[in-house]
């Protein structure tokens, strides 16, 4: 029974992610309207045959803007997490293999990064790098590093004591070779699990930065930015906050569900939900 329920949640996650990916892929082939075209005659248009999800305060087609936004959401999610995870794994692995002073220096620095709560680190980085899409990708990537460094570190420490690693060492394998050949493959399941959950977190963070006006810049469309731009109009026309918000929740929920399912699969379902 539990297994069945779990499977249903994975399917839901996959379905949600597929919806977002599909919106993104279609946006490259077909868009109902130019997402940045301001049609002043059609401002705040209700959903209709012409504008499937209506238009915003500048008369831009909401569906087209959402479709273009999913590109950014997925781009930021994939790129920032990939970059952050790669760097994090390298740092964490070095920390795990290194001895003495080097090890404690690396780990203390990671501890320091981990002590920044929530989006504080990302905000600080954006202040330095400046607003914009790529700068927020960079900030989110750096934001991800400590998590992966910690994960890789603990996995390496676990593995280091395993017999086969000791055996490999005894016939003189170099540390790099040990990581590549032995440790990395055994880390993969946990890394993939963390990866999926991180993408949800990265999309959330990107939308938050864009909402604050620090991420994707107008006139481009991003889910967070669309919500931010709609703020003055939501009191008179609340509908504006609905479509982009729902797509955002779908994207985050989808990746989180897949991440949780992978986690249950690798760790075994006990106390986690």
């Amino acid at each position, binding site marked *: *029974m*539990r297994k069945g329920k779990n499977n249903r949640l994975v399917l839901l996650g996959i379905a949600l992610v597929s919806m977002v990916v599909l919106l993104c892929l279609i946006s490259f082939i077909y868009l109902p309207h130019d997402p940045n075209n301001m049609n002043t005659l059609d401002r705040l248009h209700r959903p209709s045959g012409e504008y499937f999800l209506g238009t915003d305060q500048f008369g831009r087609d909401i569906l087209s803007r959402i479709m273009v936004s999913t590109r950014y959401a997925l781009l930021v999610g994939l790129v920032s997490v990939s970059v952050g995870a790669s760097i994090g794994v390298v740092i964490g692995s070095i920390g795990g293999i290194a001895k003495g002073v080097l090890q404690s220096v690396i780990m*203390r*620095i990671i*501890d*320091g*990064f981990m*002590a*920044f*709560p*929530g*989006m*504080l680190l990302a*905000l*600080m*980085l*954006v*202040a*330095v790098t400046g607003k914009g899409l790529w700068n927020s990708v960079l900030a989110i990537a750096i934001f991800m590093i400590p998590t992966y460094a910690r994960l890789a570190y603990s996995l390496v420490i676990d593995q280091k004591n395993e017999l086969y690693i000791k055996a490999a060492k005894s016939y003189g394998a170099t540390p790099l070779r040990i990581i590549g050949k032995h440790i990395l493959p055994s880390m993969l399941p946990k890394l993939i699990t963390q990866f999926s959950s991180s993408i*949800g977190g990265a999309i*959330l963070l990107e*939308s*938050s930065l864009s*909402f*604050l*006006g*620090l991420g994707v810049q107008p006139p481009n469309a991003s889910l*967070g930015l669309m*919500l931010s731009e709609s*703020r003055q109009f*939501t*009191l008179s026309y*609340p509908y504006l*906050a609905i479509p982009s*918000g729902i797509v*955002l*929740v779908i994207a*985050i*929920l989808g990746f*989180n*569900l897949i991440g*949780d399912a992978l986690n249950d699969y690798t760790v075994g379902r*006990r*106390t*986690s*939900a």
Partner: protein
Amino acid sequence: MVKYTINRLLSGVVVLFVISWITFFVLTVIPGDAALLSLGTDATPERLEALRESMGLNQPWYERYFSWLTHFLAGDWGNSLFFGEEVLTLIMQRLMITVSLAVFSLLLAIPVAAIIGILSAIYQDKWIDRLARTVMQLGDAIPQFWLALIFLVFFSGKLGWFPVPGFIPVEEGWWRSIQSLLLPSIVVAIGLVGYLIRIIRSSMLSALEQDFMLMTRVNGLSSAQAVFKYALRSAVIAPVTTILMQLAGLLAGTVLVESIFALPGVGRLLLVAVEQRDVILLQGTVMFITGVVVCVNFLADILYRVINPMIQFGGERNA
């Protein structure tokens, strides 16, 4: 216990130093020219040079770091470039609002999360547990700013239950002041509930698996006694410390809500510092928030030992 406390204290101090170094490095070394970063490219060369001089940018970075650190430790956090006032004063003026917001949201979130978390562990896989897991998933997936926006439109705009965004100072009446913080607190609380349920539920689940639960059954104790006296006793420890740590983290976790509800708190100050690239203000605010987080984590760690006599006496493996 004393030895442990000293150890934790030392490692807390080390982390604080690392943080100060990271903050300093990110904000004043990476950009190359913090003065240019702060004033923008359209600033006059004279102003730039003056700021460089006052920030000591013409010295090597390690000298700057030590000079900044010694001033910082002495309570001289510098003047905000944007506000022109002392950073520490600016933070203190706004601290009350953010702390109130954090405390209110925890007060709202804890009872709800405790009830759902405990029941979902006792009735694992029943409807209440499914509800709890749905709340956890949605809590993770719904962006706080979107929730804030929707609540603002619906409860404040359509229904008129709450005042319009903005903070009403205490001088204009206690109740009105609290009211102005209520809706933002609810939004923050909803975000917290999912997280807290997760902690409470898993802590309770592991308590229910303990051997002493067999004892309560063999001895025919009532379910209420088994749950409230025995299971809760061990389940409560982990969440208490987690909640403390959450409280500290909320100092930086209310940026979005403060921005949407126009509350002049520490989060807003942080945002202004980021938007204005006010390096000195940002440095001070970041150091303040992370400093509080590290201190609270230290206290939570010690508290964990105090409320858990088993670790306190070092007798875990006495059996």
